[in-house]
């Protein structure tokens, strides 16, 4: 029982001491701007049990503390770079917190990363070739840099793309920045039907299909081949590859048919399926 009483007193004393208020530590080598890699602020204080955290604009960074001769020295772990700007050193003693405003800088400038966003990423000459563009630059630590050749951090404008179907990159070597100019709809359907005696078929090709800017119409575009003879109608479908769609129509029962190819509302000139 006596041992229990003893330990109770010890615990009460220990917790009681921890809760005593302390005076704000005095920063003995104050500076407005701190280089994070050279960080060594010293504080005069009689207590050793301080915790220190550096609050930058985006993240808290726990600092190392060392205490000797009534002096508390702080240092950052490693040589990690930070987001520059206003920050605060926070000294924590129990429930007491003391803040010291600073301005953070990195020791050396980091390599620039150029960012350019395009919207919409896919344009189609059937509708609009206009893109919105936003540009900014930052270093690898996410510190904004002035846009090249301009004295602003963000640059935004509208650009009109050339009507050339292609996959382009807004930023070189960045596949994710790719944007796409699609081909538009075809304007005409050249149609030919050739009788292949040995295969007993009419080999029908539609193409090359081009849009109004001369781009080859997109692969996979559905071409409908409608041919009719007397009262019967036939509907055959094929998809475009490299601007051409081809179908084989058996000769049997189809000689003399009138053939039309259709892509959406565009209809070809009629072709008669003849063996000679």
């Amino acid at each position, binding site marked *: 029982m006596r041992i229990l009483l003893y330990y109770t007193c010890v615990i009460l004393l220990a917790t009681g001491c921890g809760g005593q208020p302390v005076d704000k530590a005095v920063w003995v080598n104050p500076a407005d701007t701190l280089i994070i890699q050279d960080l060594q602020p010293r504080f005069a204080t009689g207590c050793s049990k301080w915790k220190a955290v550096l609050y930058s604009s985006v993240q808290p960074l726990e600092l190392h503390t060392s205490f000797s001769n009534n002096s508390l020295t702080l240092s950052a772990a490693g040589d990690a770079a930070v987001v520059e700007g206003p920050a605060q050193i926070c000294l924590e003693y129990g429930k007491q917190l003391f803040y010291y405003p600073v301005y953070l800088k990195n020791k050396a400038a980091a390599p620039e990363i150029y960012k350019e966003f395009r919207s*919409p*990423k*896919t344009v*189609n000459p*059937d*509708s609009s070739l206009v893109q919105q563009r936003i540009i900014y630059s930052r270093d690898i630590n996410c510190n904004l840099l002035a846009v090249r050749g301009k004295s602003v951090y963000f640059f935004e404008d509208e650009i009109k793309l050339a009507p050339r179907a292609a996959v382009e990159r807004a930023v070189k070597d960045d*596949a*994710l*920045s790719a944007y796409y100019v*699609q*081909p538009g*709809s075809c304007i005409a359907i050249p149609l030919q039907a050739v009788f292949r005696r040995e*295969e*007993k078929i009419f080999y029908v090709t539609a193409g090359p299909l081009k849009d109004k800017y001369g781009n080859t119409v*997109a*692969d*996979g*575009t*559905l071409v409908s081949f*409608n041919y*009719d003879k007397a*009262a*019967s*109608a*036939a*509907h*055959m*479908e*094929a*998809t*475009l*590859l490299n601007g051409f769609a*081809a*179908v*084989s129509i*058996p000769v049997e029962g189809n000689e003399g048919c009138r053939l039309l190819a259709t*892509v*959406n*509302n565009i209809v070809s000139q009629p072709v008669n399926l003849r063996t000679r």
Partner: protein
Amino acid sequence: MSLVLLTHGVIIYFTLPKTYDAFVHIFFADHYARNWFEPWEYRWYTGFLTVSYPPLVHQAIALISKLFPLKVAFCIYAISIFEILVIGVYRFSKIFFDKTTAGVAALLAVVLSSMVETLHVYGQMPTLTGLAFLLNALPFLYQYIVKGKFISLVMTLTFLAVVISSHHVTAIFGMAFFIAPTVFMALADGLPPNKQPRNLFRYLLQIVFSALRKYKQFILLGGLIISFAIGLIFPYWYWSKSDPITQVSIPHGSRDSFITHASSGLIFFIIPLALIFALLPAIAFSITRKKRFIGWAASFFLCLLLGSGGTTPLPQMLLGKNAFNILTLDRFGFWASVIAIPFMAKFICSFLAGPLRDWWIKRFSAPAHFVLSAVTGFTYLLFIVFIFHLAAFRPLQPKEIEIQPMLNFLNRDDHMRWRYLTLGFGDQMAWLSANSLAATVDGNYHSARRLPELTTRPVERLENAKFAGDEGLASLNDFLMNAEKYSLKYVFSNDRYYDPLLYYNGWSRTIRLENGIMVWEKGNISTIKPVVPKELSPLLKKAWGYIPVSALGITILLTVFYLSRYKQKDYFDNVPVADDFYPGPVICASALLPVIFFTFFIGKQVYELLLVKEQDSPQTAVLNYYNHLDFQRFENAFHFFKPGPAYTLDQYLLGKSVNDGGLLPSFAKLDSIDVKKLNSKNDSATLQVYTRWRTSLGHREKTDTLQLQKLNKKWYILPPVFSPEIPEQQMKSYTYTLFKKMGKRVISSFPTEKDDRVKKPFAVFKQANFIRNGQQNFIAGEILNADDIPVNIALKVTVRYEKNIVKDYYPGNAFQYNLSPKAASFFQVQLDSTVRMDALKILSVELYAETDVSERGYMHGGTPVYTVAAGAGEDVLVKGKMYNELTTELTIPGILMAEKDAAGNIWQAKLAVFPAAVRSGLSGNFQEPFHKIQKQAVRMAQHPITLFINGQRRSVLPVEPDAIAKMNKGVVIIPHCFLSQEIYLQ
């Protein structure tokens, strides 16, 4: 008890996956293992309350599952309960007869067919738990009535508390069928032996007086039982009152007439009650011989009657139509078998080693007794072995499915953000649910479901919709069509029967998993929207979590306490000694019936397996031939053809492979068959066979004519003259343009970055018309994929009515959901009936299209060559050929037809599919009647349709006259075929 381990313990892990209910209870157990105090279970039916079922069994399995895997936990629990049940039978039997008889009764319980079936075929753990504790409660109740000891009352109530917490139905009906007869018997045994009147009426009067004298005991007992029944599972009663079941009655085999549905009778009546029927003379004699058994006799015969289902109208008259249609009646037969156990044990005990043995030996000799006993025992054990393997002989469930590939699929790429549906899984769908946090729209506990698409139809589960006939497929169709409403995006299909329905409702095959399960996906489905759980007070949640499991804990503690402090040697000193008298005819009947019954049963099974004559008449031969065809047993079917060197199995299969295929041969089940003899001579016959097939797209009918010949007393079908259509080409080429969506290019588990997305593809409404044709209303039109990539399009019509009523409608199968670049599809979205829409008063009609990039499903195949012939009135006949220019088979050739007027306006769209597949390079004929509606229907111009594409308002393109339609009497068609080859992942 060791016998239980030996007989049931070694096999239960293997019979468990084939049972009806085990996985449902495992799923509930998994719920409690994850969320003990939260009764809202979101994984089934868009959410339901687990307070809809007493929790104790599930909670107990959940507790065991903290140490063992779920399946093992279930097995441990099941065997433990079976041990308690055997003890219960022993104790229960002791209130009837002596200890030896009770011992035989306990042994009998281990191998009683009803018990074996309930455990190994049905997996009904709550029923067995309820019964196990009820049987243990009855001796205490008997003691309480006879001796009035307080400890007996306490023990009665604790055991009944477990019954109530385990299975409400056993608790409710147990009062009538078990507790009332026990009370009656206890009162009877409490009468002084010399004051028991011989007259039955006076005897009953004495019992009533005796009961009145003990009114305080009864008031206390009754009051406490009712309080327990209400209080222990109060949340259940609260739920059933505040959220009553709205489910229409679901057909169950136990309610069938067992005369017209012999298979139901076999499963639900004959097999579980086999021994009871075999020993019925002895049981009936014993149970009616003594007045103290009057209550049991009434219970036994009443249970037997109710267990006979719809064979007679009496059960429905007794239970009332409502209860009759909700309850599964096999449980009554089960209870009858339990009541009969002591009486069967009494007879068996006496016949094997008692006075009846001496009687038999005296009359028929000892060897006769030995042979009879041995053969009866042997055939009965064979019968029990048959029940153990019933699921193997008569498969009740699909083969076991490895669930890990599905779990992997659900876990990756945020697939859990949508709901899924299983098809053809049987009860294993509950096992998948128990192992995943993903949600399904289906479920396996229909009392709790509240989705109108399910509650209004007599469908047990969506996953086995094909077994529920037209209603089942209609219900499934609702979900597949209105998938957006329930965020249903994935279907795991284990049955290709559903493939046509899925495809024509806009679902695309995504991947075949390692376990052979095909995953179907629907595009443009929103992720699961938060569902507000049904309110239940925190107090009730705590009560649900604590009270039932506490009841079990208290029962165990009190039993230990009772055994150590109260158990007496003269425990059953009030039970009168029963003699072994049976009349001669009863002995003979009860001794011979079992051997006759079980020998006949086993003989019949062997006959059906090995000796059945499948070809003894032309009709039988044809019926059996079609039966084999239906189950795809082609080798068996081949043996019905006249044997000969020119027609080998190889030739038959080759013929099938080039001739068969399509909706009927590959995706249909035989619904009915009618064989008509056209002509018959001595050794030859010509039969016309009319078959009706169920497909997921509706019924199809077919008529065949078969020639048969008799050879060596067997009828054979003459092989058909095989003239296959052969394409000219030896090799065929076709250029497909396939697309690959590159998917996530940013390798990160964070939500997709904006840079990572493909834009919403462009689409254009070419036209959309609101058409009213009599009572039918629909939106018909055409939509174009205006983009350069294949798209999936989701259409939705929103009609706003007065009083803020908003209803959404989705297209069915009259639409091509996936389109190639610059391809267009007709569509038709069915709305409500004219009466309904006019009553609600339309304010506005909006048509929404959502597009998404697609990489499959945009090939619709085939070249229809057609003419349209005029018919009577507005009827026309579209007929022609479907030419297959592709390098793959058109598995289900189909066309999407639209009716256009002279100006090019679309009035209706309709899908037509044809039964036979078309092989590559060949053509198949088709003809389809089509009824034009332009003359009687009206375009509802007073309700203009507001169009939206990807959330932005759009207008229609100018409508132009269609020359092809004009040439074809206003009918235009586009191909819409299903290609089953997975290489294209259509």
